[in-house]
């Protein structure tokens, strides 16, 4: 692997009890990024959060009939580019149809994708016949 590249490829059962494990991995990676000049503890929280939200999303979209499925998460950092990909094999959804939360209305739900969009530079969700990928990118400067 190149000197400036980190890639972590993880598979965990699609259960919420693994959220803290995935979140902690994100935090540890944030603290290891030598080139990042911003506040690493804030970055650590943000990675923890986007990984948590994305994994919850993947769990929701994996069918409940298949509780033994795995969620695959790939976190890669090359130079200043952070990319997180979260794979699910559920029905998928169109991320562009999800509205931002209505701040005037007090809803219990609907803040997850908003938080991901706010904290990352770009977010896209690709559907293919085999699997769906939520891809999130951030420039680490």
């Amino acid at each position: 692997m190149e000197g400036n590249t980190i890639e972590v490829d993880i598979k965990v059962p699609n259960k919420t009890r693994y959220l803290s494990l995935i979140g902690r991995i994100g935090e540890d990676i944030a603290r290891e990024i030598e080139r990042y000049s911003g506040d690493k503890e804030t970055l650590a929280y943000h990675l923890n959060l986007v990984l948590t939200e994305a994994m919850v999303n993947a769990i929701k979209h994996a069918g409940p009939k298949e509780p033994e499925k795995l969620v695959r998460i790939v976190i890669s950092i090359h130079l200043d580019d952070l990319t997180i990909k979260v794979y699910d094999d559920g029905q998928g959804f169109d991320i562009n149809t999800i509205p931002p939360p209505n701040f005037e209305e007090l809803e219990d739900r609907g803040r997850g994708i908003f938080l991901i969009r706010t904290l990352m530079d770009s977010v896209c969700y690709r559907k293919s016949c085999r699997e769906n990928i939520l891809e999130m990118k951030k420039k680490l400067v």
Partner: protein
Amino acid sequence: MNLVNETRNDVVILYVKEERLDAHNSADLKSAVQKLFEDGKKNVLVDLKEVRFIDSSGLGALVSGFKNAISHQGNLKLSSLQSQVKSMFELTRLHRVFEIFPSTVEAIENFSS
């Protein structure tokens, strides 16, 4: 979920004794708060001193508690937010919705005033 319940000056304080309030455990908090209002409690303070991390589900559970309070003519307030947790309330504009106090003592004074 590890929740500790204490009553002081007619205020039920729910201490969330968890490092994370997320999609794994937030439903427990939601039902605990709901039960307090259904049991006739009017003033509930959720203390988040030990919570280092909150996600959208955790925020949602607190919003649900807040709405429960309104529908039972009660109050739900928050205390002891760590700075990163507080910044999630700001990001989602929820700091305008909740009354947030630095400590349980200050929150309880506010309930009594």
